[in-house]
Protein backbone atom coordinates (compact mmCIF):
# COMPACT_ATOMS: atom_id res chain seq x y z
CA UNK A 1 0.00 0.00 0.00
CA UNK A 2 1.32 3.36 -1.03
CA UNK A 3 0.64 5.08 2.29
CA UNK A 4 2.60 2.51 4.26
CA UNK A 5 5.43 2.53 1.72
CA UNK A 6 5.62 6.35 1.74
CA UNK A 7 5.77 6.38 5.52
CA UNK A 8 8.52 3.78 5.37
CA UNK A 9 10.52 5.70 2.76
CA UNK A 10 10.33 8.98 4.64
CA UNK A 11 11.08 7.25 7.95
CA UNK A 12 14.15 5.71 6.39
CA UNK A 13 15.28 9.12 5.12
CA UNK A 14 15.15 10.65 8.60
CA UNK A 15 16.66 7.59 10.23
CA UNK A 16 19.68 7.82 7.90
CA UNK A 17 20.03 11.42 9.01
CA UNK A 18 20.20 10.35 12.66
CA UNK A 19 22.58 7.48 11.96
CA UNK A 20 24.91 9.86 10.17
CA UNK A 21 24.81 12.18 13.17
CA UNK A 22 24.57 9.91 16.21
CA UNK A 23 25.88 12.77 18.36
CA UNK A 24 22.26 13.97 18.54
CA UNK A 25 21.23 10.82 20.41
CA UNK A 26 24.19 11.14 22.74
CA UNK A 27 23.27 14.75 23.51
CA UNK A 28 19.67 13.77 24.18
CA UNK A 29 20.89 11.12 26.58
CA UNK A 30 22.83 13.72 28.49
CA UNK A 31 19.76 15.52 29.82
CA UNK A 32 18.31 12.63 31.85
CA UNK A 33 21.77 11.60 33.01
CA UNK A 34 22.41 15.11 34.32
CA UNK A 35 19.09 15.05 36.17
CA UNK A 36 19.99 11.67 37.61
CA UNK A 37 23.46 12.68 38.77
CA UNK A 38 23.00 16.33 39.68
CA UNK A 39 19.39 16.46 40.84
CA UNK A 40 18.23 13.14 42.25
CA UNK A 41 20.65 13.26 45.26
CA UNK A 42 18.77 16.39 46.39
CA UNK A 43 15.58 14.39 46.65
CA UNK A 44 17.00 11.79 48.98
CA UNK A 45 16.47 13.73 52.19
CA UNK A 46 13.36 15.47 50.97
CA UNK A 47 11.06 12.78 49.73
CA UNK A 48 9.83 10.07 52.06
CA UNK A 49 10.18 6.61 50.54
CA UNK A 50 8.63 3.43 51.83
CA UNK A 51 8.89 -0.30 51.50
CA UNK A 52 12.39 -0.65 50.17
CA UNK A 53 11.69 1.68 47.25
CA UNK A 54 14.49 4.06 46.52
CA UNK A 55 14.05 7.68 45.61
CA UNK A 56 14.97 6.73 42.04
CA UNK A 57 11.85 4.58 41.84
CA UNK A 58 9.95 7.77 42.33
CA UNK A 59 12.08 10.00 40.17
CA UNK A 60 13.20 7.95 37.12
CA UNK A 61 9.73 6.99 35.79
CA UNK A 62 8.81 10.66 35.56
CA UNK A 63 12.13 11.39 33.95
CA UNK A 64 11.42 8.79 31.25
CA UNK A 65 8.18 10.57 30.48
CA UNK A 66 9.81 13.98 30.37
CA UNK A 67 12.53 12.69 28.02
CA UNK A 68 9.81 11.83 25.51
CA UNK A 69 8.24 15.22 26.00
CA UNK A 70 11.50 17.14 25.52
CA UNK A 71 12.53 15.20 22.46
CA UNK A 72 9.25 15.86 20.73
CA UNK A 73 8.80 19.48 21.54
CA UNK A 74 11.95 20.76 19.87
CA UNK A 75 11.61 18.98 16.51
CA UNK A 76 9.98 22.06 14.99
CA UNK A 77 13.40 23.60 14.40
CA UNK A 78 14.36 20.75 12.10
CA UNK A 79 11.31 21.11 9.91
CA UNK A 80 11.81 24.86 9.60
CA UNK A 81 15.15 24.10 8.01
CA UNK A 82 13.48 21.72 5.59
CA UNK A 83 10.79 24.24 4.70
CA UNK A 84 13.49 26.80 4.02
CA UNK A 85 15.37 24.39 1.75
CA UNK A 86 12.18 23.54 -0.13
CA UNK A 87 12.21 19.88 0.89
CA UNK A 88 8.67 19.85 2.28
CA UNK A 89 7.36 21.67 -0.75
CA UNK A 90 9.09 19.22 -3.07
CA UNK A 91 7.39 16.32 -1.29
CA UNK A 92 4.07 18.12 -1.42
CA UNK A 93 4.34 18.45 -5.21
CA UNK A 94 4.71 14.66 -5.49
CA UNK A 95 1.83 12.18 -5.02
CA UNK A 96 3.22 11.37 -1.55
CA UNK A 97 0.57 11.15 1.14
CA UNK A 98 0.53 14.26 3.34
CA UNK A 99 0.23 12.05 6.38
CA UNK A 100 3.46 10.27 5.42
CA UNK A 101 5.31 13.58 5.22
CA UNK A 102 4.50 14.00 8.92
CA UNK A 103 4.62 10.38 10.01
CA UNK A 104 8.08 9.59 8.60
CA UNK A 105 9.89 12.09 10.83
CA UNK A 106 7.60 11.40 13.82
CA UNK A 107 8.43 7.69 13.66
CA UNK A 108 12.14 8.53 13.58
CA UNK A 109 11.68 10.66 16.71
CA UNK A 110 9.77 7.80 18.32
CA UNK A 111 12.65 5.44 17.55
CA UNK A 112 15.13 7.90 19.07
CA UNK A 113 13.07 8.19 22.23
CA UNK A 114 12.70 4.42 22.59
CA UNK A 115 16.46 4.03 22.33
CA UNK A 116 17.11 6.80 24.84
CA UNK A 117 14.47 5.56 27.29
CA UNK A 118 15.76 1.98 27.14
CA UNK A 119 19.39 2.94 27.60
CA UNK A 120 18.54 5.35 30.40
CA UNK A 121 16.47 2.74 32.21
CA UNK A 122 19.38 0.30 32.06
CA UNK A 123 21.79 2.96 33.27
CA UNK A 124 19.52 3.82 36.23
CA UNK A 125 19.17 0.27 37.52
CA UNK A 126 22.62 0.08 39.14
CA UNK A 127 21.88 3.43 40.83
CA UNK A 128 18.85 1.95 42.56
CA UNK A 129 15.96 2.00 40.10
CA UNK A 130 13.80 -1.16 40.33
CA UNK A 131 11.26 -1.08 37.51
CA UNK A 132 8.66 -3.80 37.10
CA UNK A 133 9.24 -5.21 33.61
CA UNK A 134 5.61 -5.58 32.50
CA UNK A 135 4.76 -2.21 33.98
CA UNK A 136 7.71 -0.70 32.17
CA UNK A 137 6.54 -2.19 28.85
CA UNK A 138 3.11 -0.64 29.32
CA UNK A 139 4.80 2.62 30.19
CA UNK A 140 6.54 2.43 26.80
CA UNK A 141 3.13 2.52 25.13
CA UNK A 142 2.29 5.72 26.99
CA UNK A 143 5.68 7.13 26.10
CA UNK A 144 5.14 6.29 22.42
CA UNK A 145 1.84 8.16 22.46
CA UNK A 146 3.49 11.09 24.18
CA UNK A 147 6.36 11.38 21.71
CA UNK A 148 3.99 11.05 18.74
CA UNK A 149 1.87 13.83 20.21
CA UNK A 150 4.66 16.22 21.11
CA UNK A 151 6.65 15.62 17.91
CA UNK A 152 3.53 16.16 15.79
CA UNK A 153 2.84 19.28 17.81
CA UNK A 154 6.42 20.46 17.25
CA UNK A 155 6.27 19.82 13.49
CA UNK A 156 2.85 21.42 13.23
CA UNK A 157 4.11 24.54 14.98
CA UNK A 158 7.20 24.65 12.76
CA UNK A 159 5.06 24.31 9.63
CA UNK A 160 2.74 27.08 10.70
CA UNK A 161 5.28 29.53 12.14
CA UNK A 162 8.09 28.85 9.63
CA UNK A 163 10.66 30.87 11.57
CA UNK A 164 12.82 29.96 14.54
CA UNK A 165 12.28 33.37 16.12
CA UNK A 166 8.55 32.80 16.22
CA UNK A 167 8.80 29.18 17.29
CA UNK A 168 11.12 29.73 20.26
CA UNK A 169 8.82 31.73 22.54
CA UNK A 170 5.99 29.24 22.06
CA UNK A 171 8.15 26.18 22.64
CA UNK A 172 9.72 27.73 25.72
CA UNK A 173 6.34 28.97 26.89
CA UNK A 174 4.90 25.46 26.70
CA UNK A 175 7.96 23.71 28.02
CA UNK A 176 8.45 25.20 31.46
CA UNK A 177 4.87 25.18 32.83
CA UNK A 178 4.38 21.63 31.61
CA UNK A 179 7.60 20.53 33.27
CA UNK A 180 6.82 22.33 36.54
CA UNK A 181 3.26 21.04 36.65
CA UNK A 182 4.17 17.48 35.74
CA UNK A 183 5.32 16.42 39.18
CA UNK A 184 8.57 15.07 37.77
CA UNK A 185 10.93 17.17 39.82
CA UNK A 186 8.97 16.79 43.04
CA UNK A 187 5.77 14.81 43.63
CA UNK A 188 2.64 16.89 43.28
CA UNK A 189 1.47 15.63 46.68
CA UNK A 190 3.77 18.24 48.17
CA UNK A 191 1.96 21.02 46.29
CA UNK A 192 -0.86 23.22 47.65
CA UNK A 193 -4.31 22.33 46.39
CA UNK A 194 -4.57 25.03 43.72
CA UNK A 195 -1.32 23.82 42.15
CA UNK A 196 -2.56 20.23 42.24
CA UNK A 197 -5.75 21.30 40.50
CA UNK A 198 -3.74 23.11 37.86
CA UNK A 199 -1.61 20.00 37.30
CA UNK A 200 -4.72 18.10 36.26
CA UNK A 201 -4.85 20.21 33.11
CA UNK A 202 -1.42 19.02 32.13
CA UNK A 203 -1.39 15.98 29.84
CA UNK A 204 2.11 15.09 30.94
CA UNK A 205 1.02 14.96 34.60
CA UNK A 206 -1.19 11.92 33.98
CA UNK A 207 1.62 10.15 32.17
CA UNK A 208 4.03 10.84 35.02
CA UNK A 209 1.54 9.57 37.61
CA UNK A 210 0.93 6.43 35.56
CA UNK A 211 4.66 5.93 35.02
CA UNK A 212 5.26 5.75 38.79
CA UNK A 213 2.62 3.15 39.51
CA UNK A 214 3.53 1.12 36.42
CA UNK A 215 7.21 0.97 37.31
CA UNK A 216 6.19 -0.05 40.83
CA UNK A 217 4.38 -3.01 39.30
CA UNK A 218 0.74 -1.92 39.61
CA UNK A 219 -0.92 -2.25 36.25
CA UNK A 220 -4.64 -2.12 37.06
CA UNK A 221 -4.71 1.33 38.55
CA UNK A 222 -6.95 4.32 37.92
CA UNK A 223 -3.88 6.45 37.25
CA UNK A 224 -2.92 4.20 34.33
CA UNK A 225 -6.49 4.36 33.07
CA UNK A 226 -6.47 8.15 33.22
CA UNK A 227 -3.21 8.32 31.27
CA UNK A 228 -4.67 6.24 28.45
CA UNK A 229 -7.96 8.09 28.60
CA UNK A 230 -6.12 11.34 28.19
CA UNK A 231 -3.38 10.36 25.75
CA UNK A 232 -5.31 8.34 23.14
CA UNK A 233 -7.66 11.11 22.01
CA UNK A 234 -4.94 13.74 22.41
CA UNK A 235 -2.61 11.79 20.11
CA UNK A 236 -5.29 11.39 17.45
CA UNK A 237 -6.23 15.05 17.68
CA UNK A 238 -2.71 16.44 17.46
CA UNK A 239 -1.70 14.12 14.60
CA UNK A 240 -4.79 15.18 12.63
CA UNK A 241 -4.01 18.83 13.29
CA UNK A 242 -0.38 18.46 12.22
CA UNK A 243 -1.34 16.56 9.05
CA UNK A 244 -3.59 19.46 8.19
CA UNK A 245 -0.64 21.79 8.69
CA UNK A 246 1.37 19.75 6.14
CA UNK A 247 -1.48 20.06 3.68
CA UNK A 248 -1.69 23.80 4.08
CA UNK A 249 1.87 24.95 4.52
CA UNK A 250 2.84 27.83 2.26
CA UNK A 251 6.54 28.45 1.87
Amino acid at each position, binding site marked *: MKLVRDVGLLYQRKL*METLRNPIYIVMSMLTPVLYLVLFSPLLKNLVPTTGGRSVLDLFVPGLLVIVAFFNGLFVGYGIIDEIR*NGVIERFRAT*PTSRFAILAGPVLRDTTNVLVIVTVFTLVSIPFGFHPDFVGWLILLVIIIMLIITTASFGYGLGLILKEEDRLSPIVQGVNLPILLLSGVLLPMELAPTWLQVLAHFNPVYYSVEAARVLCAGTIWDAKVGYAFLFMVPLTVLVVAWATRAVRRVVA
Partner: protein
Amino acid sequence: MPDPVVVTKDLKKYFSSRSGPVQAVDGVDLEVFPGEIFGFLGPNGAGKTTTLRILTTLAKADSGTATIAGFDVSREPGKVRRNIGYVGQAGGADRPATGRENLILQGRLYDMTPQQAKDRAAELITALDLGEFADRIAHTYSGGQLRRLDVALGIMHRPKVLFLDEPTTGLDPQNRANLWVQIEKLRDMGVTVFLTTHYLEEADALSDRLAIMDHGRIVAEGTPVELKKQVAGDTISVGLRDDSRNEAIATLLGQRPYVRDFTLDDCRLRIVVEEGSKVMPDLLRLFDQEGIEIATITLAVPTLDDVFLNKTGRTLRDTESAGGGQ
Protein backbone atom coordinates in the same frame (compact mmCIF):
# COMPACT_ATOMS: atom_id res chain seq x y z
CA MET B 1 -0.77 22.06 -33.46
CA PRO B 2 -0.82 19.41 -30.71
CA ASP B 3 -3.10 19.82 -27.70
CA PRO B 4 -1.71 22.16 -25.06
CA VAL B 5 -0.36 20.44 -21.97
CA VAL B 6 -1.09 23.36 -19.65
CA VAL B 7 -4.29 25.37 -20.00
CA THR B 8 -5.56 28.03 -17.63
CA LYS B 9 -8.77 29.96 -17.94
CA ASP B 10 -9.42 33.18 -16.07
CA LEU B 11 -7.38 32.06 -13.09
CA LYS B 12 -7.72 34.31 -10.04
CA LYS B 13 -6.36 34.37 -6.56
CA TYR B 14 -6.58 36.96 -3.79
CA PHE B 15 -4.58 37.34 -0.66
CA SER B 16 -5.93 39.26 2.26
CA SER B 17 -3.62 41.88 3.67
CA ARG B 18 -4.01 44.62 6.25
CA SER B 19 -4.98 47.11 3.56
CA GLY B 20 -7.63 44.80 2.12
CA PRO B 21 -7.58 42.01 -0.44
CA VAL B 22 -4.68 41.91 -2.89
CA GLN B 23 -5.33 40.46 -6.31
CA ALA B 24 -2.25 38.28 -6.72
CA VAL B 25 -3.46 36.55 -9.86
CA ASP B 26 -6.05 38.48 -11.81
CA GLY B 27 -7.51 36.52 -14.68
CA VAL B 28 -4.67 34.55 -16.23
CA ASP B 29 -5.27 32.70 -19.50
CA LEU B 30 -2.42 30.56 -20.73
CA GLU B 31 -1.61 27.68 -23.03
CA VAL B 32 1.65 25.78 -23.03
CA PHE B 33 2.38 23.26 -25.76
CA PRO B 34 4.30 20.00 -25.53
CA GLY B 35 8.03 20.26 -25.98
CA GLU B 36 8.34 24.02 -25.64
CA ILE B 37 10.13 26.11 -23.06
CA PHE B 38 7.57 28.56 -21.86
CA GLY B 39 8.90 31.59 -20.02
CA PHE B 40 6.94 33.55 -17.48
CA LEU B 41 8.57 36.95 -17.10
CA GLY B 42 7.68 39.68 -14.65
CA PRO B 43 8.94 41.66 -11.70
CA ASN B 44 8.95 40.26 -8.18
CA GLY B 45 5.44 40.26 -6.83
CA ALA B 46 3.80 40.11 -10.26
CA GLY B 47 2.02 36.88 -9.39
CA LYS B 48 4.25 34.44 -11.27
CA THR B 49 5.02 32.24 -8.30
CA THR B 50 1.42 32.24 -7.13
CA THR B 51 0.29 31.13 -10.60
CA LEU B 52 2.93 28.41 -10.57
CA ARG B 53 1.85 27.24 -7.13
CA ILE B 54 -1.73 26.92 -8.33
CA LEU B 55 -0.60 24.92 -11.37
CA THR B 56 1.49 22.60 -9.19
CA THR B 57 -1.41 21.99 -6.73
CA LEU B 58 0.46 23.72 -3.90
CA ALA B 59 -2.12 26.49 -3.70
CA LYS B 60 -5.78 26.78 -4.60
CA ALA B 61 -7.20 29.31 -7.02
CA ASP B 62 -10.19 31.39 -5.91
CA SER B 63 -11.77 31.14 -9.34
CA GLY B 64 -11.03 30.00 -12.87
CA THR B 65 -9.71 26.65 -14.00
CA ALA B 66 -6.36 25.11 -14.80
CA THR B 67 -5.64 21.74 -16.34
CA ILE B 68 -2.35 19.90 -16.73
CA ALA B 69 -2.22 17.06 -19.24
CA GLY B 70 -6.01 17.15 -19.18
CA PHE B 71 -6.40 16.90 -15.39
CA ASP B 72 -7.99 19.66 -13.37
CA VAL B 73 -5.60 20.96 -10.71
CA SER B 74 -8.22 21.37 -8.01
CA ARG B 75 -10.35 18.29 -8.72
CA GLU B 76 -7.62 15.78 -9.57
CA PRO B 77 -4.51 16.98 -7.76
CA GLY B 78 -3.15 13.44 -7.44
CA LYS B 79 -3.14 12.90 -11.21
CA VAL B 80 -1.70 16.36 -11.80
CA ARG B 81 1.16 15.63 -9.37
CA ARG B 82 2.07 12.48 -11.29
CA ASN B 83 2.36 14.47 -14.49
CA ILE B 84 4.43 17.38 -13.28
CA GLY B 85 7.87 18.01 -11.93
CA TYR B 86 8.40 20.99 -9.69
CA VAL B 87 11.53 22.82 -8.69
CA GLY B 88 10.68 25.61 -6.28
CA GLN B 89 12.69 28.74 -5.59
CA ALA B 90 14.23 27.13 -2.54
CA GLY B 91 15.29 24.08 -4.53
CA GLY B 92 14.18 21.09 -2.53
CA ALA B 93 17.23 18.85 -2.24
CA ASP B 94 17.49 17.19 1.14
CA ARG B 95 20.81 18.45 2.49
CA PRO B 96 21.77 15.64 4.91
CA ALA B 97 21.49 13.01 2.14
CA THR B 98 23.59 12.39 -0.96
CA GLY B 99 22.46 13.44 -4.41
CA ARG B 100 21.90 9.85 -5.44
CA GLU B 101 19.85 9.08 -2.32
CA ASN B 102 17.75 12.16 -3.03
CA LEU B 103 17.08 10.98 -6.57
CA ILE B 104 16.24 7.41 -5.58
CA LEU B 105 13.84 8.53 -2.85
CA GLN B 106 12.16 10.90 -5.30
CA GLY B 107 11.68 8.05 -7.78
CA ARG B 108 10.30 5.79 -5.06
CA LEU B 109 7.79 8.44 -4.01
CA TYR B 110 6.53 8.34 -7.61
CA ASP B 111 6.04 4.57 -7.23
CA MET B 112 9.15 3.39 -9.06
CA THR B 113 10.55 0.05 -7.89
CA PRO B 114 13.93 0.26 -6.10
CA GLN B 115 15.67 -1.00 -9.24
CA GLN B 116 13.86 1.43 -11.54
CA ALA B 117 14.70 4.31 -9.24
CA LYS B 118 18.35 3.27 -9.07
CA ASP B 119 18.64 2.98 -12.85
CA ARG B 120 16.90 6.24 -13.52
CA ALA B 121 19.07 8.03 -10.95
CA ALA B 122 22.20 6.68 -12.63
CA GLU B 123 20.86 7.76 -16.01
CA LEU B 124 20.23 11.32 -14.85
CA ILE B 125 23.54 11.56 -13.03
CA THR B 126 25.22 10.85 -16.36
CA ALA B 127 22.90 12.96 -18.49
CA LEU B 128 23.09 16.04 -16.27
CA ASP B 129 26.77 15.65 -15.32
CA LEU B 130 26.25 15.13 -11.61
CA GLY B 131 28.83 12.36 -11.49
CA GLU B 132 31.56 14.07 -9.52
CA PHE B 133 29.38 14.95 -6.58
CA ALA B 134 26.38 12.58 -6.72
CA ASP B 135 27.64 10.42 -3.85
CA ARG B 136 28.57 13.27 -1.55
CA ILE B 137 26.24 14.67 1.09
CA ALA B 138 24.32 17.57 -0.44
CA HIS B 139 25.41 19.85 2.42
CA THR B 140 28.77 20.07 0.72
CA TYR B 141 27.42 21.16 -2.68
CA SER B 142 28.00 24.56 -4.22
CA GLY B 143 24.96 26.62 -5.22
CA GLY B 144 25.34 25.56 -8.82
CA GLN B 145 25.65 21.87 -7.96
CA LEU B 146 22.56 22.03 -5.74
CA ARG B 147 20.59 23.61 -8.57
CA ARG B 148 21.59 20.87 -10.96
CA LEU B 149 20.48 18.26 -8.47
CA ASP B 150 17.18 20.13 -7.97
CA VAL B 151 16.52 20.02 -11.71
CA ALA B 152 17.37 16.30 -11.83
CA LEU B 153 14.91 15.70 -8.96
CA GLY B 154 12.26 17.55 -10.96
CA ILE B 155 12.53 15.22 -13.98
CA MET B 156 13.24 11.97 -12.11
CA HIS B 157 9.81 10.51 -12.98
CA ARG B 158 9.77 11.80 -16.60
CA PRO B 159 7.01 14.37 -16.05
CA LYS B 160 5.01 15.83 -18.91
CA VAL B 161 5.79 19.34 -17.67
CA LEU B 162 8.61 20.61 -15.51
CA PHE B 163 7.94 23.78 -13.55
CA LEU B 164 10.99 25.81 -12.61
CA ASP B 165 10.45 28.76 -10.30
CA GLU B 166 13.22 31.36 -10.73
CA PRO B 167 15.77 28.64 -11.39
CA THR B 168 18.85 30.85 -11.62
CA THR B 169 18.17 33.35 -8.85
CA GLY B 170 21.20 33.60 -6.62
CA LEU B 171 23.57 31.89 -9.06
CA ASP B 172 26.72 33.59 -10.31
CA PRO B 173 26.94 34.28 -14.06
CA GLN B 174 28.93 31.17 -14.83
CA ASN B 175 26.58 28.83 -12.99
CA ARG B 176 23.67 30.62 -14.57
CA ALA B 177 25.10 29.94 -18.01
CA ASN B 178 25.64 26.29 -17.05
CA LEU B 179 22.06 25.94 -15.93
CA TRP B 180 20.82 27.47 -19.16
CA VAL B 181 22.68 24.77 -21.05
CA GLN B 182 21.08 22.23 -18.71
CA ILE B 183 17.60 23.58 -19.37
CA GLU B 184 18.16 23.52 -23.12
CA LYS B 185 19.19 19.90 -22.74
CA LEU B 186 15.76 19.24 -21.23
CA ARG B 187 14.19 20.58 -24.38
CA ASP B 188 16.25 18.11 -26.38
CA MET B 189 14.96 15.34 -24.13
CA GLY B 190 11.44 16.44 -25.06
CA VAL B 191 10.52 17.81 -21.61
CA THR B 192 8.06 20.68 -21.63
CA VAL B 193 9.46 23.39 -19.37
CA PHE B 194 7.48 26.15 -17.71
CA LEU B 195 9.85 28.58 -16.05
CA THR B 196 9.39 31.85 -14.23
CA THR B 197 12.07 34.46 -14.16
CA HIS B 198 12.57 38.13 -13.54
CA TYR B 199 15.70 38.16 -15.68
CA LEU B 200 15.11 39.57 -19.15
CA GLU B 201 18.14 37.89 -20.63
CA GLU B 202 17.03 34.54 -19.28
CA ALA B 203 13.52 34.78 -20.67
CA ASP B 204 14.95 35.93 -23.98
CA ALA B 205 17.62 33.26 -24.24
CA LEU B 206 15.60 30.24 -23.13
CA SER B 207 11.95 30.72 -24.01
CA ASP B 208 10.38 29.44 -27.16
CA ARG B 209 7.35 31.42 -26.12
CA LEU B 210 6.81 33.69 -23.17
CA ALA B 211 4.19 35.60 -21.28
CA ILE B 212 4.91 38.84 -19.49
CA MET B 213 3.10 39.31 -16.23
CA ASP B 214 2.52 42.41 -14.17
CA HIS B 215 0.14 43.01 -11.25
CA GLY B 216 -1.42 39.59 -11.64
CA ARG B 217 -2.22 39.98 -15.32
CA ILE B 218 -0.60 38.82 -18.51
CA VAL B 219 0.29 41.94 -20.45
CA ALA B 220 1.93 40.32 -23.47
CA GLU B 221 2.43 36.86 -24.92
CA GLY B 222 4.34 35.47 -27.89
CA THR B 223 7.78 34.41 -29.05
CA PRO B 224 10.57 36.74 -27.92
CA VAL B 225 11.08 37.86 -31.53
CA GLU B 226 7.38 38.58 -32.10
CA LEU B 227 7.11 40.52 -28.89
CA LYS B 228 10.11 42.65 -29.60
CA LYS B 229 8.87 43.35 -33.12
CA GLN B 230 5.48 44.50 -31.84
CA VAL B 231 6.96 47.32 -29.86
CA ALA B 232 9.54 49.89 -30.29
CA GLY B 233 11.40 49.03 -33.45
CA ASP B 234 15.11 49.72 -33.45
CA THR B 235 16.50 52.91 -32.03
CA ILE B 236 19.37 54.80 -33.65
CA SER B 237 20.93 57.31 -31.30
CA VAL B 238 23.03 60.02 -32.87
CA GLY B 239 25.25 62.52 -31.10
CA LEU B 240 25.57 65.71 -33.18
CA ARG B 241 28.57 68.03 -33.15
CA ASP B 242 26.29 71.06 -32.76
CA ASP B 243 22.62 71.87 -32.80
CA SER B 244 22.76 74.58 -35.51
CA ARG B 245 21.15 72.41 -38.18
CA ASN B 246 18.38 70.90 -36.08
CA GLU B 247 15.55 72.35 -38.17
CA ALA B 248 17.02 70.97 -41.36
CA ILE B 249 17.47 67.61 -39.76
CA ALA B 250 13.84 67.53 -38.66
CA THR B 251 12.68 68.29 -42.18
CA LEU B 252 14.96 65.67 -43.69
CA LEU B 253 13.91 62.92 -41.32
CA GLY B 254 10.26 63.81 -41.85
CA GLN B 255 10.70 62.98 -45.51
CA ARG B 256 12.23 59.57 -44.98
CA PRO B 257 9.56 56.84 -45.20
CA TYR B 258 11.40 54.43 -42.87
CA VAL B 259 11.53 56.85 -39.94
CA ARG B 260 8.74 55.90 -37.58
CA ASP B 261 9.46 58.52 -35.00
CA PHE B 262 12.28 60.73 -33.82
CA THR B 263 13.17 63.10 -31.01
CA LEU B 264 15.76 65.79 -31.20
CA ASP B 265 16.91 67.82 -28.31
CA ASP B 266 20.12 69.81 -28.29
CA CYS B 267 22.72 67.55 -29.81
CA ARG B 268 20.97 64.28 -29.12
CA LEU B 269 18.93 62.69 -31.84
CA ARG B 270 16.93 59.50 -31.38
CA ILE B 271 15.38 57.88 -34.41
CA VAL B 272 13.01 54.94 -34.24
CA VAL B 273 13.00 52.76 -37.36
CA GLU B 274 11.82 49.33 -38.37
CA GLU B 275 15.15 47.71 -39.05
CA GLY B 276 18.09 49.78 -37.95
CA SER B 277 20.86 47.85 -39.59
CA LYS B 278 19.28 48.28 -43.03
CA VAL B 279 18.71 52.04 -42.86
CA MET B 280 21.92 53.10 -41.13
CA PRO B 281 23.94 53.36 -44.36
CA ASP B 282 21.29 55.59 -45.92
CA LEU B 283 21.17 57.85 -42.87
CA LEU B 284 24.93 58.21 -42.81
CA ARG B 285 24.99 59.11 -46.50
CA LEU B 286 22.26 61.66 -45.97
CA PHE B 287 24.05 63.38 -43.11
CA ASP B 288 27.22 63.40 -45.15
CA GLN B 289 25.55 65.00 -48.18
CA GLU B 290 23.96 67.68 -46.04
CA GLY B 291 27.23 68.35 -44.24
CA ILE B 292 25.81 67.48 -40.84
CA GLU B 293 28.61 66.42 -38.56
CA ILE B 294 28.12 63.37 -36.41
CA ALA B 295 30.07 62.71 -33.22
CA THR B 296 28.67 59.29 -32.30
CA ILE B 297 26.12 56.84 -33.59
CA THR B 298 24.73 53.70 -31.95
CA LEU B 299 22.06 51.22 -32.86
CA ALA B 300 19.92 49.58 -30.19
CA VAL B 301 17.61 46.68 -30.99
CA PRO B 302 14.62 46.35 -28.67
CA THR B 303 14.84 44.13 -25.63
CA LEU B 304 12.06 42.53 -23.66
CA ASP B 305 12.45 45.45 -21.28
CA ASP B 306 11.18 47.73 -24.05
CA VAL B 307 8.23 45.38 -24.43
CA PHE B 308 7.59 45.61 -20.72
CA LEU B 309 7.95 49.41 -20.79
CA ASN B 310 5.58 49.61 -23.70
CA LYS B 311 2.92 47.53 -21.94
CA THR B 312 3.21 48.82 -18.40
CA GLY B 313 4.84 52.23 -18.61
CA ARG B 314 7.65 51.07 -16.35
CA THR B 315 10.83 49.21 -17.05
CA LEU B 316 11.51 45.87 -15.49
CA ARG B 317 14.77 47.25 -14.13
CA ASP B 318 12.85 50.02 -12.33
CA THR B 319 10.61 47.53 -10.59
CA GLU B 320 13.64 45.61 -9.41
CA SER B 321 14.57 48.15 -6.76
CA ALA B 322 10.97 48.45 -5.60
CA GLY B 323 11.10 44.74 -4.77
CA GLY B 324 8.21 43.18 -2.90
CA GLY B 325 7.19 39.65 -2.02
CA GLN B 326 5.35 37.10 -4.03
